[in-house]
């Protein structure tokens, strides 16, 4: 931007505008976004801080072998659950946006639940986690059992459940909306009641993924 003789500071302002536009373009291009995200709903800062703490705990450092795969990009994703549609089981829905041509490989995936349990009670649950089928699936529709896990809780608190490896299939397909259903068995009580009792601590999913861009040549060094 040539500085007009009568306005020396115009060049600095023009340069700033130019660089800010360049920064926007560079960020969107590198993040493979067509435009900046318009946030559908704000996430409470407490929920963000709490989930980020889990990310730091789970986000293992990259090993030397992973350095070699620099051509792939590693992502860590935290997705907050929206209430699902199943009356009997605990239905959780997660929305993801990835383009078809991206080859996603899930390395780790944990579901974090906050169980509200009376203080002096120790409860033990047998939890079944299902991957629910298409849109609007009711409980008991076509579902895939992801895992069955024992969960014991003394008083209220956060608990994590591992969701691999079946979740890889969801990300490998065309999935954009992940529907999970949780059913509890045993004398310990009802998982839906324990989780829904405090939706202020909404469940969230922490996943570590590696993503290979389309047409990427992987140079093994």
């Amino acid at each position, binding site marked *: 931007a040539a500085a007009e003789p009568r306005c020396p500071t115009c060049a600095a302002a023009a*340069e700033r505008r130019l660089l800010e536009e360049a920064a926007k373009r560079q960020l969107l291009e590198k993040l493979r976004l067509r435009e900046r995200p318009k*946030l559908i709903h704000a996430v409470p800062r407490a929920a963000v801080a709490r989930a980020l703490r889990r990310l730091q705990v789970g*986000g293992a450092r990259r090993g030397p072998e992973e350095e070699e795969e*620099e051509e792939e990009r590693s992502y860590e994703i*935290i*997705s907050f659950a929206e209430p699902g549609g199943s009356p009997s089981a605990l239905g959780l829905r997660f929305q993801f*946006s990835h383009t078809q041509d991206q080859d996603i490989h899930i390395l780790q995936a944990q579901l974090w639940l906050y169980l509200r349990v009376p203080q002096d009670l120790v409860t033990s649950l047998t939890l079944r986690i299902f991957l629910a089928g298409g849109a609007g699936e009711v409980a008991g529709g076509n579902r895939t059992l992801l895992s069955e896990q024992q969960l014991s809780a003394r008083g209220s608190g956060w608990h994590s459940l591992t969701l691999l490896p079946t979740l890889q299939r969801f990300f490998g397909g065309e999935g954009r909306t992940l529907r999970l259903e949780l059913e509890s068995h045993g004398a310990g009580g009802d998982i839906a009641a324990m989780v829904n009792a405090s939706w202020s601590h909404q469940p969230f999913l922490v996943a570590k993924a590696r993503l290979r861009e389309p047409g990427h040549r992987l140079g093994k060094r």
Partner: protein
Amino acid sequence: SLRCSQNSNLCCRRDYYVDFRDIGWNDWIIKPEGYQINYCVGQCPLHVAGSPGMASSFHTAVFNLVKANNIQASGHSCCVPTRRRPLSILYFDRHSNIVKTDIPDMIVDACGCS
């Protein structure tokens, strides 16, 4: 590499920090608060072609080629990034998921003459 200063028009690195609040993107980019969008600018007359290259031998090699091929002195090489580093970023995607990733080669650390 040289950082640009007033009294030289040789190839150098010009630093510029973009604060995401200034561009209204701090609502969806959680961390960092901004980043250095440095860029390379300046002249590369032939006698500095290939410097400060990855190694002084690179400069010597280029300079010998220039002399051996008697390239016209008017020729210039280009002032380009010679070293860049990644930017770690934490942001909300359009479904309000939090995504953390490293963008490779995002920040220009050093410039040089090709």
